[in-house]
């Protein structure tokens, strides 16, 4: 057993689906303060099952909240155009600091008609995000943190058939739509979105009903439980950023190539946090930016140094084996002149320089359902 050398008294949290994970034979691992399933039958099999059929993920560790009140006060903190966000719609957006650095990436949506916004943020950042949102909207808005709900994701080409069999209305939704639905008396917040590049749903369920809903979904042979291991390889192949790795407070949306997440009116009004710096960097071009790369042999992991002609030109921020690609894939930040598709460079792995090349993302085409 590894000795961590610390006496961490913080209690590890469990999601409402914890007992089910254990019953299903998951290998559990601590992640963002929660005891989470790393894998069930194996990362490769789970990854492939999600791409071929449907995978059920427990993402209850993520932060959910309901915001009501003055939306302009909340909008100031993020990059979405909330005035343009209609009931039943969801947007991917960024929470920025005053320098335009990325505090988090999140989903903001209107599943409750005119009754405010539903927000889902990353697990590791949720406490800081919600404190930041609450303090900046104090007196004009109310941020209610939702702690009595689980969140699951059902992803893959069979997701719509599996979930549609339980909730026919879900099959009618298209990518980035959301709503509140009744499933045999249980109130679900559903969005057609996810983090795998596949079609699918994210489903918020009252904690007390979470296991029953998960069991109903898993009662369909096309759906299997999927752990965090495959969640990471799936999102990496889909070219989707992992917060704290592929972007953080020291990266702007320009460097992270996430400018598409800043709504056009917000760019024009220059009223998102750090707008002056971000738009200046956008005009001037950043020194480094995020790219995808592929290579053969051993996969480069996070932190590996990228070199070209003997000089350091970048660093790997996410890397691993892509089961659908059948080889190593990764994301890195490299000096701008090398951030061009098919540019070849080398990545240092255990002291040896291994050839790799810039490859357009996503590595595996997105298959979102757009109607």
């Amino acid at each position, binding site marked *: 057993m590894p000795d961590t050398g610390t006496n961490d008294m913080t209690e590890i949290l469990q999601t409402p689906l914890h007992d089910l994970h254990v019953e299903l034979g998951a290998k559990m691992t601590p992640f963002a303060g929660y005891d989470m399933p790393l894998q069930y039958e194996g*990362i*490769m099999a789970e990854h492939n099952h999600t791409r071929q059929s449907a995978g059920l993920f427990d993402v209850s560790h993520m932060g959910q909240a309901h915001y009501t009140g003055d939306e302009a006060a909340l909008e100031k903190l993020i990059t979405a155009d909330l005035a343009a966000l209609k009931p039943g719609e969801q947007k991917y957006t960024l929470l920025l600091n005053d320098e335009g650095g990325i505090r988090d990436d999140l989903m903001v949506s209107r599943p409750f008609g005119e009754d405010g916004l539903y927000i889902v943020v990353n697990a590791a950042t949720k406490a800081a995000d919600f404190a930041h949102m609450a303090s900046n909207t104090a007196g004009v808005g109310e941020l209610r943190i939702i702690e009595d709900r689980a969140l699951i994701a059902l992803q893959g080409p069979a997701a719509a058939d599996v979930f549609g069999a339980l909730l026919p209305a879900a099959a009618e939704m298209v990518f980035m739509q959301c709503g509140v639905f009744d499933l045999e008396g249980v109130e679900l917040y559903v969005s057609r979105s996810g983090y795998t590049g596949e079609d699918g749903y994210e489903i918020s369920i009252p904690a007390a009903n979470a296991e029953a809903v998960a069991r109903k979904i898993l009662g369909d042979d096309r759906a299997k439980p999927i752990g965090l291991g495959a969640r990471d390889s799936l999102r990496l192949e889909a070219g989707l950023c992992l917060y704290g790795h592929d972007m953080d407070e020291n990266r702007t949306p320009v460097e992270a190539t996430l400018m598409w997440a800043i709504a056009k009116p917000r760019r024009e009004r220059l009223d998102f946090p750090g707008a002056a710096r971000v738009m200046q960097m956008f005009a001037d071009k950043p020194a480094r930016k995020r790219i995808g790369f592929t290579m053969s042999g*051993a996969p480069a992991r996070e932190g590996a140094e990228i070199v070209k002609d003997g000089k350091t030109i970048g660093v790997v921020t996410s890397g*691993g084996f892509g089961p659908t690609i059948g080889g190593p894939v990764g994301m890195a930040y490299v000096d701008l002149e090398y951030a061009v598709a098919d540019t070849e460079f080398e990545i240092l792995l255990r002291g040896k320089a291994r050839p790799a090349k810039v490859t357009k993302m996503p590595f595996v085409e997105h298959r979102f359902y757009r109607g």
Partner: protein
Amino acid sequence: MSVKFTKDHEWVKVDGDEATVGITAYAADQLGDVVFVELPDVGKSFEPGDEMAVVESVKAASEVYAPVSGEVVAVNDVLEGEPQKVNESADGDGWFVKLKLSDKSQLDGLMDEAAYKAHIS
């Protein structure tokens, strides 16, 4: 032929003055799906504890250490194209290297099967 084990989950099958080395089924299971194995060159010599090979799973990279001193006389080239052999047959077709032993007495310092089983339980 005797089989010995290290605390780092390598196995050593001794046949005369040659030893075949691999990782245990327990280790392969802990690593998960193996996707790449980096093997040493034939002719290279190692001392006990030297990093001899690297095994990459979907999850992470792990080093394989030389359990005893010796010179590499063969490597399992099959793993280059079929790294999953490590998961399928850790103590058989998924072997890593064959070493020409330079000091057989070092084997006495390794665990036998019963001791290894106790080590992982």
